[in-house]
């Protein structure tokens, strides 16, 4: 049986991982189907005075906010920014990190040392501070730039992991065999790629949750995607001022964040245990 099939079997019997995977899948589906599921237009303000700050009830399952907008609809639409940023930035980050780590692991010691020293310095940069500065100084950063910047400052860890993995495999028998059969650097790389793939999948999945939290935090500070487009972060920011009068405005997007991040972290933990059974405990 192939190692991927084995990993799939181990993943399937891990109840926490399955729960996380199912939950993440449902959240992703709900995000795509937001126009079908949302009871109202997330931007519509039917009556900013008469219908503002309504508590959760029959008409509005999660209540309305200070502008009479439906909180459930806004929470559903807010998922779009979170998931787009989380999934795309995590994917980009592991691709870049994987590429650099792979190159460093296979290249000459001088090049390897240079790359990894650079990564050491980059890892010690105060990432959030830099993102905060860029987002605040260039006001109204577009979504694509948010994704690129988060990915561009988030690939260092995975490059280290991949490099360590490549180096640990470089002297193994199957690589020696490939070399003996005449494989060049590209040939060796092709043999190593499937092994590193597992590391990258785990890295990416565990990164999604962190990136979603990071984007939400920046959004909460009024940065990144701007209102009236709902993001979970800017919804919590708006709910903060009405916290005592209408707590549901901040609670709903916060719970959505919590469940989403828990789902991806459960799935990531499960994938790590399934793909690297020696580490499972």
């Amino acid at each position, binding site marked *: 049986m192939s190692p991927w099939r084995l990993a799939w079997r181990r993943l399937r019997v891990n109840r*926490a991982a399955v729960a996380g995977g199912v939950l993440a899948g449902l959240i992703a589906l709900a995000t795509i189907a937001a126009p079908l599921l949302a009871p109202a237009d997330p931007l519509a303000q039917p009556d900013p005075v008469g219908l503002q700050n309504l508590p959760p009830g029959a008409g509005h399952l999660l209540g309305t906010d200070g502008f009479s907008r439906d909180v459930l609809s806004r929470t559903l639409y807010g998922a779009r920014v979170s998931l787009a940023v989380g999934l795309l930035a995590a994917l980009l980050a592991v691709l870049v990190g994987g590429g650099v780590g792979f190159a460093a692991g296979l290249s000459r010691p001088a090049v390897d040392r240079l790359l990894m*020293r650079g990564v*050491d*310095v980059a890892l*010690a*940069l*105060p*990432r*959030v*501070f*830099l993102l*905060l*500065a*860029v987002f*605040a*100084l*260039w006001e109204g950063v577009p979504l694509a730039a948010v994704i690129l910047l988060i990915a561009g400052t988030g690939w260092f860890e995975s490059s280290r992991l991949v490099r360590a993995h490549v180096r640990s495999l470089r002297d193994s028998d199957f690589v020696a065999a490939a070399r003996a059969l005449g494989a060049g650097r590209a040939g060796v790389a092709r043999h190593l790629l499937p092994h590193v793939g597992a590391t990258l999948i785990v890295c990416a999945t565990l990164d999604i*949750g962190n990136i979603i*939290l990071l984007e*939400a*935090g920046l959004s*909460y*500070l009024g940065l990144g995607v701007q209102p009236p487009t709902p993001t979970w972060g800017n919804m*919590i920011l708006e*709910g*903060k001022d009405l*916290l*005592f009068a209408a*707590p549901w405005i*901040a*609670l709903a997007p*916060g719970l959505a*964040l*919590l469940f989403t*991040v*828990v789902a991806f*972290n*459960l799935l990531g*933990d499960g994938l790590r245990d399934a793909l690297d059974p020696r580490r499972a*405990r």
Partner: protein
Amino acid sequence: MLGFLARRLALAALTVLAVVTITFALVHLAPGEPMLGNAERMRADSATIARQRARFGLDRPIATQFAFYLANLARGELGESFVRHRPVALVLGEALPNTLLLGAVALAASFLLGVAIGSVQAARRGTWVDGVLSIGSLACYSTPSFWLGLVLLLVFGQQLGWLPVAGMTDPAAPEHVGPLGRALDVLRHLLLPAATLALVNAGAIARFERGALVDALGAEFVRTARAKGLSPAAVLVKHAGRSALAPVLTLAGLSVPALLTGSVLVESVFGWPGMGRVTYEAIFARDYNVVTAAAMIAGILVALGSLLADLAVARADPRQRPDA
């Protein structure tokens, strides 16, 4: 050991220099007019702006400005805040201790809580206790800190009314409370923001401690300790615990950036007068000197955290001493 320390300090210095350079470039290349407060900017004519720019040397080429900045920095001069019209060292000097107090209390609490939870989990591995605590620590670790802060504020500040909802001191406190009374006042204000940061960070530490302890419990030396008749508690704490301490100490040192990030958010939730808030305001006001100095301090704290973690690890685990 000395060689190791020198190498680490050199790397830290390089990192801090990189932080200063990047931040300096960012703030100077960004659009927007610095110098004046919002109200002043509204009614200032171009001559006033030009005069202000000349006064702070902002009309010179950016490379020259950077050279001047570094020269001043070498003399310990951080410059003047454009907006507050006070030396940067004073502005940040007031805010830094507040952030350090919040961060240090949160780090210590999260370390103790995380190690305790992780140890219970490892000792009761595979039972329902382990399962419940696993989910609990995962949830803590997955919670947005700023939102948790709001929830705690809602519950303990408003619903129960036990703790103050904002600030660091009670402005209505009588003058004659004395130093002890003032300390208690700060403590009451500190409780919620510190608990917020500590809970989120403890989740990560507990997950790590559990893993490290389970690894250690499977080691030969633990079997030996058991075989010679030590009690399970002694084995867990003295033998396995000591060996699991090193990775957890590393994690605690590496969580300094997360705590700094968290403090920007949590300070904004609780109105805590710390670095996070000052920095945030300075970025929006384009107060170049404050922003660059704040970035430098953040860089220094991060480097210091990882260095202290390495030293603590060397102390806790002789096998990991760099000269061993």
